[in-house]
């Protein structure tokens, strides 16, 4: 169906064929420039490179400034998460989920907990569900802030990055108050959440929402509609809707190509069914406003808009949250009945799938993680050929990969 980039062959020297006559000038001198032979240059972008957002290696072949081929090499951050899952107890695995997509650890906790709960079939208290939703959406904002800020960095704009970190700092302070950790939370547990929100926490979340809405406009004016930024990202790295579906892209990558699909709305889990039916939020889509449908600008636009939609969801949850228990009746040493389940949730980067299989024991038989970055990064090999070197950086940035997740 779709052709694959063949692995780069060793570069062959291409000699330009020039007729013998042209090689000698009328004066009798040999024409100097004509017997220059050119060959493609192979460059390792990564594993240590500012544009790869971690330790991904992309072997690119370039002809001058034009990239003629790219090959993705993963595995520099492989930490055997799936094998560990088969060797530790169900609850002990939870901190490991924080580590694969370290920018949205809450969502990872949530995905794993939902998968285990799907096998166990436990009831989650209402307050826990809403706290989970608030945390997951706050974390989505934080993750998109990083995606957007570092994308500005890729394009060469430094300042939005710092503005994004300013807001993210507050978000992390909020999480620190609720669970004591700033990056690897392990807050959402199997059966509910770890503990109740401290007094006044929900008020502070509301204040965060108020301030964020103001600041969001700053990002939008400063970078998203900046003329140079638009010139650098529009019509670059176009992913057609067919291609997006074929490559199994999910999340903002899919919606950037104009496909209206959001797991929260179309395959609801937790309280999202209610939220979607109440019409609380919209699903932003790429429309090819500045260039072509599915270009880098569309993907960035979708992420930026999603931050505002998350704010709406948080506000809705804050409006209807009531006191109550925050964790179901879960034993200390968890025994999961034999069975298996696959649960996919909407991570900031796409569908985060957890496939867990149990044989009734204290440890999992299989603990599979389907990381959205792992699937999204596959499309790079298709997008890179034919772009400029600077565009390849823009394209890699627009896929918003987290290497912790591609390698797990």
């Amino acid at each position, binding site marked *: 169906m779709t052709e*694959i980039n063949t692995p780069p062959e060793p570069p062959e020297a291409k000699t330009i064929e020039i007729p013998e006559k042209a090689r000698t000038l009328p004066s009798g001198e040999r024409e100097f420039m004509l017997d220059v032979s050119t060959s493609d240059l192979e460059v390792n972008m990564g594993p240590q490179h500012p544009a790869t957002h971690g330790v991904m290696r992309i072997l690119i072949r370039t002809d001058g400034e034009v990239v003629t081929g790219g090959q993705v090499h993963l*595995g520099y951050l492989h930490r055997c998460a799936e094998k560990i899952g088969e060797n530790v107890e169900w609850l002990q695995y939870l901190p490991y989920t924080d580590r694969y997509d370290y920018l949205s650890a809450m969502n990872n906790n949530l995905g794993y907990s939902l998968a285990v709960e799907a096998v166990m079939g436990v009831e989650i208290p209402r307050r826990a569900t809403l706290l989970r939703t608030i945390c997951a959406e706050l974390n989505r904002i934080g993750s998109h802030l990083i995606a957007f800020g570092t994308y500005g960095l890729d394009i060469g704009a430094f300042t939005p990055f710092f503005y994004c970190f300013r807001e993210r700092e507050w978000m992390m302070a909020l999480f620190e108050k609720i669970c004591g950790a700033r990056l690897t939370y392990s807050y959402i547990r199997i059966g509910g959440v770890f503990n109740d929100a401290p007094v006044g926490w929900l008020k502070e979340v509301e204040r965060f929402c108020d301030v964020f809405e103001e600041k969001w406009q700053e990002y939008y004016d400063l970078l998203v509609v900046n003329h140079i930024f638009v010139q650098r990202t529009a019509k670059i790295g176009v992913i057609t809707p067919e291609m997006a579906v074929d490559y199994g892209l999910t999340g903002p990558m899919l919606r950037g190509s104009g496909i209206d699909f959001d797991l929260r709305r179309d395959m609801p889990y937790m309280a999202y069914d209610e939220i979607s039916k109440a019409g609380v939020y919209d699903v932003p889509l790429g429309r090819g406003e500045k260039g072509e449908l599915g270009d880098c600008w569309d993907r960035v636009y979708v992420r930026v808009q999603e931050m505002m939609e998350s704010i709406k969801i948080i506000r809705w949850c804050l409006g209807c949250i009531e006191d109550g228990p925050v964790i179901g009746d879960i034993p200390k040493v968890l025994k999961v009945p034999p069975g298996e389940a696959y649960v996919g949730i909407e991570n900031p980067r796409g569908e985060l799938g957890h496939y867990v299989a149990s*044989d009734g024991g204290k440890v999992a038989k299989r603990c599979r993680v389907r990381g959205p970055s792992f699937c999204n990064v596959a499309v790079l090999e298709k997008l890179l050929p034919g772009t400029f070197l600077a565009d390849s950086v823009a394209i890699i940035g627009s896929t918003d990969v987290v290497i912790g997740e591609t390698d797990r």
Partner: protein
Amino acid sequence: MKDFDEIYQRLEAIKAPGLLSADRPREGDPEDKTDKGRAGEAFVLIEPAAAKEFLIAVRDDAELAFDILADLTATDPDTEDENFWLNLHLLSLGHGHRLAIKAMVPKADPVVPSMVDAHMAAHFHERECAEMFGITFEGNPDPRNILLPDDWEGHPLRKDYEFPKEYHGISCE
């Protein structure tokens, strides 16, 4: 949005290639202590050799339209078990339903035709699956290791995998 039973009826109606049976969660027998039943989600069992044709059939059928291959992985259920499970998870964007698929791949001859022709998404997943379990996906366009080093020995996610004592002079103990 369809539930599992409707999807399974449709699969039978279109005679999806390689379709074997459905496996639904069930209650355990209270009398029999060894039978604990099965929890979780329902899935269909298919022939591994026909996996690609199956995926194409359910992708192109308008009522099912499973156009996204969400996940492709394998499971080694037990050291004594004779089969690997090949787990596929499909997602339909238009209808918003999922399908879990399982195929039994014999450990003695773990060869499955590549599913890249049906879904490009299968490419990276197959490479990962191949190195982790030693299942060969025939026809994968770039069958190198993806997460492990090229010279890694053994298939780590097999239950009988023995952890290496050292790697290139680096002690692993």
